[in-house]
Structures are given as C-alpha cells and as structure tokens.
C-alpha cells in the first residue's frame, strides 16, 4: 500500500523542514481517516479536526477580516480580508465595507484547496495564507467558502465561484479609483486552482473582466496515468488512490477522469484558442505527483495563444506555501505580488 513504506517516509522528510513535514503528514493521516471506501466522507470528524479561526474585525499585523453572506440560498459565505488604515485601531462596522482608497487596488478572489472535500475559508492554514496575500499584494482578498464534495458535486464549487465573482464585481466599495472598476484576480491552490480555471472560463463567456489567474499546485487529473503520477505515487504525502477518491467524490457519478472539469485539455476538453482568457500564473511543485498534468495545462494555455507563466519549483512538495520556512515560499509570494501589481 503506497505511503506506508518506511523508505518513502524518509524521502519526504528530507526535502521539507521538519515542522512542514509534521504538518502535512498530519493532514495526510487525518484525511485517511475521513475518506470512506464507499465514497462517503466523515464530515463531522473533518470539521472537528480542522483547525479553524474566526474572522477578526480587529486588525492583526495590519489586516482585519470579516465574513459576508453572499448567497443565502446556498449558505455561501466568504471571508474578506482588508488592510487596516494606519490610524484606525478598530474599524467600525460601517468601515468594514468602506470604499478602497487607492488608485488601483487588486481584489483577489481566493479559492482554498482541499481536493474539493477538505478545508474551509476559516481553516487556519488558509486564513493565514490570505492574510499574507493582503500584506504582500496590498490587496483585498475574498476567500470563498464554496460547497464541497462529496455532498456537493460538480458543478457546485464552480457555481459558488461564479456567484462570488459576480458579487465582487458588483461591489462599488471595491472599485479602484482610477477607473471605477473592480480589479479582479482569481487565485487558488489545489482544488482551488482548478476552480480558478473554470470560473475564469465562465467569466469570459459572460463578459466579466478577470485580470489574472493564479494557480498554485492546481488539481487536475486524467484517466491515463502520467509519468510523474506513476513515479511519485505515495512518495511525497500523496497517493494516486486518494487522488482517485477525490475525483470520484467530485465528478458526476458516471463520469471518468477525462471529464473536462478534471482534464480541461484532455480528450473531452476544448481549446481556448481565440478566447480572451486572463493571463495565468501557474505554480508547479516538482514533487507533486500530478505535476505533469499541471505542466500540460500550462502548455495547453500557451498553445491556445494565452498569456501564461509557468513557475516550476523542482524540489517543492505540496503545501510548501503554507509555511514561510522555505525559499520557494518567498519566491512564489514575490511572483504573486508582481503578478497583481498595477505596474504589470
């Protein structure tokens, strides 16, 4: 059984700091407990084990947050992160949604990872990441708490992402002063990266302007096994078996992994040629077992004439961006901040 081999454990231990190893291994093992062989998910336990943090309207390190109900029909919440003004120590309620006061303010709509099944906007790992993005990019971050599998399959997360995009686009208080428009970027890791792609597609089809896509270790798959999938299966925290489980949990019941949600440029995918797709930053970790697919994705965009930058981090594993204790983390943060900066 992949992953239970003593040799494999030592390998992953060598390439990440010990506390990172502890963090990701803990997730791995906890997640093993949550996935049931019959395809159901122990949501109760998942929520209990997930370390969560509340929103905090009091600024911490210059960033404050609050939750918003975007759609009551689907209970869609999002957590909004903003920079606190230098003066104010405690934003008043009316200050929460006060207009952004710069010429250009990037608004990053963030989709957390978790293979479509795990985590939430208020998971500590993602709350922390979003707060970092605010400081780094001088941005407003909107973290969407999309519906998860297996209780909610395709296309629910995409629908929620789309709803959030429309909502963000219609907030006057998020408009940049320069052109009275909301400068929107989509960002996400793992399943969130996958959602970024599909929401951007929908945006193109309906005329909402998305300025850029940021995909961190995006989750893609396919029916056939790629070379990296075979080589890295079980070696660095992730197994093909668990990947398959998550796709089965997310995709419509009778579909296979060549469904375009999973494999956008696969046999059932469609080319983006001639479409005004946003520019993309695709970050790929070399020790992520699906990195072949991520590279294929970037190449698919390139072939269709789209603007794409591929950042390949050879020795990075999944989750490297969760802790600021490695060089890749800082590299990626710099790239992201440049990507959304108005000078670009």
């Amino acid at each position: 059984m992949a992953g239970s081999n003593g040799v494999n454990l030592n390998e992953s231990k060598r390439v990440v700091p010990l506390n990172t190893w502890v963090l990701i291994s803990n997730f791995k093992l906890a997640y093993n407990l949550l996935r049931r062989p019959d395809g159901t998910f122990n949501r109760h336990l998942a929520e209990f084990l997930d370390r969560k943090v509340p929103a905090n309207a009091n600024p911490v390190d210059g960033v404050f947050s609050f939750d918003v109900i975007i759609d009551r029909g689907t209970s869609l919440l999002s957590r909004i992160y903003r920079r606190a003004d230098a003066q104010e120590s405690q934003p008043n309620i009316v200050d929460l949604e006060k207009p952004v006061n710069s010429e250009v303010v990037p608004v990053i709509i963030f989709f957390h990872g978790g293979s479509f099944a795990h985590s939430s906007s208020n998971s500590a790992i993602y709350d922390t990441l979003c707060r970092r993005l605010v400081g780094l990019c001088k941005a407003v971050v909107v973290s969407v708490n999309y519906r998860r599998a297996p209780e909610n399959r395709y296309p629910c997360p995409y629908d929620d992402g789309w709803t959030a995009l429309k909502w963000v686009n219609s907030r006057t208080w998020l408009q940049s002063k320069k052109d009275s428009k909301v400068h929107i970027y989509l960002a996400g890791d793992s399943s969130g990266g996958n959602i970024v792609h599909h929401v951007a597609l929908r945006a193109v089809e309906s005329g909402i302007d998305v300025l850029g896509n940021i995909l961190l270790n995006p989750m893609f798959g396919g029916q056939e096994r790629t070379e990296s999938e075979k080589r890295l299966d079980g070696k660095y925290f992730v197994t093909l078996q668990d990947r398959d489980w998550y796709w089965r949990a997310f995709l419509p019941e009778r579909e296979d992994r060549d469904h375009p949600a999973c494999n956008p440029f696969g046999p059932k995918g469609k080319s983006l040629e001639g479409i005004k797709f946003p520019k993309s930053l695709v970050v790929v970790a070399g020790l992520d077992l699906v990195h072949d697919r991520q590279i294929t994705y970037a190449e698919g965009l390139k072939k269709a004439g789209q603007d794409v930058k591929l950042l390949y981090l050879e020795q990075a594993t999944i989750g490297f961006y969760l802790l600021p204790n490695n060089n890749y983390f800082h590299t990626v943060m710099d790239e992201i901040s440049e990507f959304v900066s108005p000078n670009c």
Partner: protein
Amino acid sequence: MKREHPNLHPQQISDPSTLAAAGYSTSTSTSAMAPHNGKAKIWEEGEGHQADGGMDELLAVLGYKVRSSDMAEVAQKLEQLEEVMGHAQEDGLSHLASDSVHYNPSDLSTWLESMISELNPNLNFGPSADSLLAPAESSTITSIDFSDHKHHQQQKLFEESSSSDYDLKVIPGKAVFSQTQIDSRESKRLKTDLYQTSSSSSLSSATTLGSFGISTESTRPVVLVDSQENGIRLVHLLMACAEAVQESNFTLAEALVKQIGFLAVSQAGVMRKVATYFAEALARRIYKLCPQNSTDHSLSDILQIHFYETCPYLKFAHFTANQAILEAFEGKKRVHVIDFSMNQGMQWPALMQALALRPGGPPAFRLTGIGPPAHDNTDHLQEVGWKLAQLAENIHVEFDMLLALFAGGDGYRVEENNGCLMLGWHTRPLIATSAWRLNTNQPVVGAA
C-alpha cells in the same frame, strides 16, 4: 524571472554562514534537525520561531501546539501511526474514525498517541495511555479485530455502525477549545453606530464558521448580512430598538420604532402581526404609556393561565418539582403540600392527577395555599381552592384545602403544627388556622 533553486550539497551543513548565503535562515536550536544521516538536507527554522513554552510558532499560527523540542518525537509518532494504519483494513480505518473518541487535535502529540492506541492497544506510551483507554471516559472505544495479531490479548468486536452518520462523540471541556467571546459592549456600540448612520448592512454578532482559542485580547468575529430584504431589516431593527429601550436610549429607540412601524406594514401575514405587536409594545415602553394599575385582576389571572399553557418553561419547572414531590410521597397514605406562592394553583392539577393514577390508589391529599390578598379584596384564593376541590372530586382523590392570605414581609414564618397552620412573626404566633375537611362543596377557612 525565476530564482534559481540553491544547489544544496547532500551532506550536513554545519556552518551557519553557508546556510545564510544559500538563502536559509538559521536558528540556534538543533531540535529541527532531520535524522542524522549523511544525506540529510537541513532546512533550519527561522530565528524567533519559538514562542512561549518553546512552541513552534509557525505551527501554532496554524492551530497546532507542538514544542520545537518535541518535533522529532511527534514526527516519530506520525510514522508510527502511519504504519499502524497501514495494517488496518480499509474498512477498519473509517470505522475507527467514527467509533473512537478524539481528543484535542491541536495537541498533536496526544492526539497521535490516542489514535495509535486505538489501532494497537498493546503499544505502551506510559501511564497516560491507560487513561486514554479508560472506558469511563468514552462511550465506545472499539479496536479492530486483527486475527493475524497473535499477541492481541483481547478480542474486541468491531462494531458496525448502523448508520454511516454515526460519528464521533466529542468530549466537551478540555478536549475542545472554548469559543472566543465577543466583547458584548463593543458589539452593542457598533450596532448603535450602525443604525444612526442608517447604512444598508446590519450586524449580527455571532461566532460564525467556527472558532479557535486565540490568545489575543479581543477577537471580533463579524458576519455581515446583506439586508436588502425588508424582513431581515425588520428583525434587526426590532432587536436594536429593544436594546435601545433597555439602555434607556429613548431618542434612538423612538427613531427606530418609527422605522419599524413603516416596515411592519410592508410585510404580510404573520410577520406583519408579530412585528406590529412588538412595535406597539416597544412604543408603550418608549412613550411610557403604561396601563393604569387596574383593579381588575381577572384579566391578569386569565393572562397568567394562558401564559402557563402556551409557554413550556413554567410548566416544565412544575413538572420537575412534581416529580420530586411524587418521589417523596411514595408509599405515604396522607400527604400535605404547602404552597407558599399560590397564584392560580397551576401546579397542582397535574400532581393530583399523578397521585390519582398511583398504583395502590391515591393518598389523602391536603393542600395549603398561601398567597397575597387581592387588591380588590375578592377572595380569589377561594376560587382557586374551589376549582381544585372540584377536580379532586372528579378524579377521586381525597382532598383537603386550606387557604391563607398572607401579605408577606420580613420575619414572617408559616408553620404547620399537627394539622394546624400558624403564621408567626419570628416566634410569635399571629394567626392560627386549622384545616377543615371538605364534606360540603365549599372549602372553608377558619382564622383566629
């Protein structure tokens, strides 16, 4: 522009300056070292990543409490757990998850130990392990039935959960973080500010998606609801107005109650009625339109009865009290209840019925009711007694009734003495009454 990944040599780098040059921050702590074999690449934690108690700061921010000095040990436990999980059957894992008790997941070390023990009870972690396995602590701890583990001393059966939704039982208290409290004064102030500037959003202060014990001085979890809908605005306005009244902020309350009036009529059906009644009640408070001290107590009595029937709280309290009384009366043939605050006697019909249904038949039931004299000098207690007597007759419970009017005050006491009730001030008797049997249809009160 892609930064080159520094080429690390596969041997131990002991010179901090080399590491620094390579872009890694170093710390003096050696606890973060990977296993000492020649192939280890060292990634040091940055300086200042140890907070109080030597906790790894980076993990702490993410919700996990692990001492830096324990990191290697925790890593070892993770490996152990993985191995043990690897031996479990697939089915077994998810059943383990649902049937075991999970302790504080932030305390990784302990959580891992408990999970390992679940899968392999023979593994000894020392004295703490026993307490984890103590059955008194949890309702079900099951272990997997390994037939291949020969040294498995006990064969426990692995329980089939009948429903896949049967999930863990969480032990509250130490095992779960407490909710962070919102500074309630703060939230009130915010609400007031909000309504004065009549913004379109309203605040509902609630802990939202979950909470985590952060040690900041004050965390303000806030959820904004888009309150374009009048229904929502109405509810928020009512709450805000009630609060304003409570804080005696009548100018604000007045402004709000006017808005409420408008919104209420924009609603339909039930919402309209409820909002209107509430608005009226609030208005009465604000404009001090209190009804005169009416001499008509029958209205308030009727209201009392309706309240009793409609809201379960009082009924439930009486139900519980009656249970206690029934237990105390077990086996007794003559019983006496003294009710020191007899209003409508709402508690007693239920008790009498329960007594009537007692196997072995009801006892003789004596009730002494003490209540304040009515303002209009009518003897309402008599009526109460009369109704109870009637009920008693209908259900065949031998019933005595004794009623006493008692205006209350300090130092007064009521004593029963051999069927004779005495009202005294401290030890001085003031009024003595004796009980009369009900053989006519009138409860009788005699007072001396």
